[in-house]
């Protein structure tokens, strides 16, 4: 009896130590990565770096077209993803009749979210670039990334809607609300924080995507700012990749600096998400 208790306690301790080690290791690797980027590239970041176009001379090259491109592509992606993704989630959750068909669709959406991103690039190359003749434009990029992250948004929005207590929906119907009014007045406002979390998570993934954008033919050298959504573009990860593949070490410093900017942009996106969530939570009075 005595030995078995002490053995159980020993295993308990071991598990705790193992968990701590795992956590420590992943944190150390992550922090090393971030500090390495900052040490290598941090000194390169200044006002000129953010306001110059790319150049053959590493000391004059900047990120202007890349971060503006990233911003516009993210904007288009966000609009498309919210419109299509949330509508699809609402349809599947509230309007579609449950049955084998809707289960099949649900399963396929889950599968889609695990598909390699380069396949979305190939799809977009065929459909948006060639079939619809949209070219390697901001619009194509936004649509492509939106396709890529739609499954994430659909799944998380459905979960947010499903998490609402069903007896409140009943209360809304009993007061004479239509299905649409129940959505607008109760379900959407109450699940907004969950839906927004999914959208931001999706955008954080999209912002770092490179492969599908290279596939659709995004350029690496852009020395002007886009004037319409049909203009060619470049984005931060592509610029970063381009600099990294140059032989001159000075360009590698630029790449590290671009990495820091990309990290900062992702971080501020997440902060924005948290801010929006807090705002929404205040208006929904759970």
């Amino acid at each position, binding site marked *: 009896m005595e030995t078995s208790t002490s053995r159980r306690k020993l295993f308990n301790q071991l598990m705790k130590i193992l968990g701590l080690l795992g956590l420590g290791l992943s944190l150390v690797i992550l922090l090393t990565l971030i500090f390495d980027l900052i040490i290598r590239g941090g000194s390169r970041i200044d006002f000129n770096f953010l306001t110059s176009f790319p150049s053959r001379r590493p000391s004059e090259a900047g990120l202007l077209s890349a971060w503006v491109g990233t911003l516009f592509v993210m904007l288009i992606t966000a609009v498309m993803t919210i419109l299509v993704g949330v509508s699809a989630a609402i349809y599947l959750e509230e309007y579609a009749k449950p049955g084998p068909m809707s289960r099949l669709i649900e399963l396929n959406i889950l599968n889609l979210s695990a598909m390699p991103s380069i396949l979305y690039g190939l799809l977009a190359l065929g459909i948006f670039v060639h079939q619809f003749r949209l070219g390697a434009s901001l619009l194509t990029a936004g649509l492509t990334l939106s396709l890529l992250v739609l499954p994430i948004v659909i799944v998380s929005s459905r979960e947010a809607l499903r998490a609402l207590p069903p007896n409140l929906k009943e209360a809304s119907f009993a007061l004479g609300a239509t299905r649409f009014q129940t959505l607008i007045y109760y379900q959407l406002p109450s699940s907004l924080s969950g839906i927004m979390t999914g959208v931001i998570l999706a955008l954080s993934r999209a912002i770092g995507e490179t492969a599908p954008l290279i596939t659709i033919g995004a350029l690496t050298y852009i020395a002007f700012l886009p004037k319409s959504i049909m203009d060619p573009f470049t984005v931060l990860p592509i610029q970063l990749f381009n600099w990294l593949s140059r032989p001159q070490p000075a360009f590698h410093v630029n790449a590290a600096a671009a990495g820091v900017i990309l990290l900062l942009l992702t971080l501020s996106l997440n902060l924005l998400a948290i801010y929006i969530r807090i705002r929404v939570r205040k208006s929904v*009075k759970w």
Partner: protein
Amino acid sequence: MVENSKLSVQNLHFFYKSQQVLKNIFLDVTEKKVTALMGPSGCGKTTLLRCVNLMHELIPEASAHGKILLQPQNVNLLSDDMDPLWVRQRVGMVFQKPNPFPKSLFENVAYGLRLRGLKNKSELSGRVEVALKQAGLWVEVSDRMTHSALSLSGGQQQRLCIARALAVEPEVLLLDEPTSALDPISTAHIEEQLSEIKKQVTVMLVTHNLHQAARCSDETVFMLAGEIIEKGKSQKLFTNPQDKRTESYITGRFG
């Protein structure tokens, strides 16, 4: 047809899938009185209640056959071309568990009015106040209308739900065991308020608590296994039941 009948249920049969839940229900509900539906769990009293504002239509496998006539319009609520929104505007419902929305007190009571497109701020707040007074909650909450409805106690939440149902000025109010989740003091509050509410609205009250039926109803219907066993003036039914089963139930031999 009985005089002063607000609702007249005629030959109502209710099925869930192939199972018959209600059999051959005939019932007249008197205007501006409280009619209690009483019986053990599973006797069909809640199902009967939910048929009156067509809540059963939300359940795919359920079907109701027969007539529920609403007076004075003299329309059959169960006819196929009946618009559930029209019915639910005239027949409000309060559920067993308090279910306020995660919104402010004001927005909860104004919900039904907003659904009908009422936007005028002063008219909205006027009608919200009237409804809260009818539900006996106004004095307690008038200074915190912007607070979350979920900050209220359970009993207050239930009175808020009553106010929410009354705000759209229904002709009939359905109460589905409104006090079964509440403590005795909150229950007494709501029972007191019923005598005020019935001056304006016809009330149908489902309860499995026979003391509650005896205390606050004018007429009582005793149901068992999907059928009406006995109905009549509450005083008479409780003091001098005609059916053996009613007598067993009210003397506490079962249920």
